[in-house]
């Protein structure tokens, strides 16, 4: 999982790009949830939440 400190170094544009990337990753993780487990989903959701909070702050 990416730490908040590391995420806060990102620029506005990078944050937006990362959100869209992780959004797709989350959909993919959900499709393969029965095989890959739910740990990945949880991590992705947490990272997404951090990024969204950052984008709101900025």
């Amino acid at each position, binding site marked *: 999982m990416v730490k908040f400190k590391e995420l806060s170094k990102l620029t506005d544009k990078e944050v937006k790009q990362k959100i869209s990337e992780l959004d*797709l990753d989350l*959909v*993919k993780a959900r*499709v393969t949830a029965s095989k890959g487990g739910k740990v990945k989903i949880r991590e992705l959701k947490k990272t997404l939440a951090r990024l969204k909070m950052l984008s709101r702050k900025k």
Partner: protein
Amino acid sequence: MEERKFVELKKEEFNIREFIKNYLGKGKVSKVAIIYTPIGEKVVMRTNKPGLVIGRGGERVDTLTRILKKRYNFENPQIEIQEVTEKYLDAQTVADDIAMSIENFGSLKFKIVAYRMLKQIEDAGAMGVELKLSGKLPGARARTWRFKKGYLKKVGDSSKVVNKAKAVAQTKSGTVGIEVSILRPDAKIHDHIDLTKKQIVEEVENGKV
């Protein structure tokens, strides 16, 4: 018995609908409705490719009218064509599109097809989407793959606003079923409340909030 007549009529309607869909080809028509009027029968077809359905100089429509008259004993069939403006918000069109893509690209590339379609539907403005593909994908063992994104109503009265459709793809390894559910952006949901600034101020002043 009266009921038997209803069933017969509905069966006949179903046959006509299936015939029209097969005649025009997969993915051409999304919905066929038959309306009985005093002057004759009105056949309303919803399509995203009106040019293909009408044909050169109305050739295909004329042929279809003749067939309907002859085979199904229609007195005066009038064919009306409605255009589907937002292709990716119409579940039947999307389902047929996926079925055709799977048939063309093979069952190995179904994930690419599904993700691409999911993105396009989302970009079209849908509130939520769900695609279910079930069958021998990608190998010999059958399973169901579910691709979903956004917000979707599943049960209850409010789930009636969801646009649902089914299609079938014939691949080398077998038949693949495709189910599509789309929640359109203009769908009215009971738990979705829009408040103007004025209304919020009034609510606060009244002490309700």
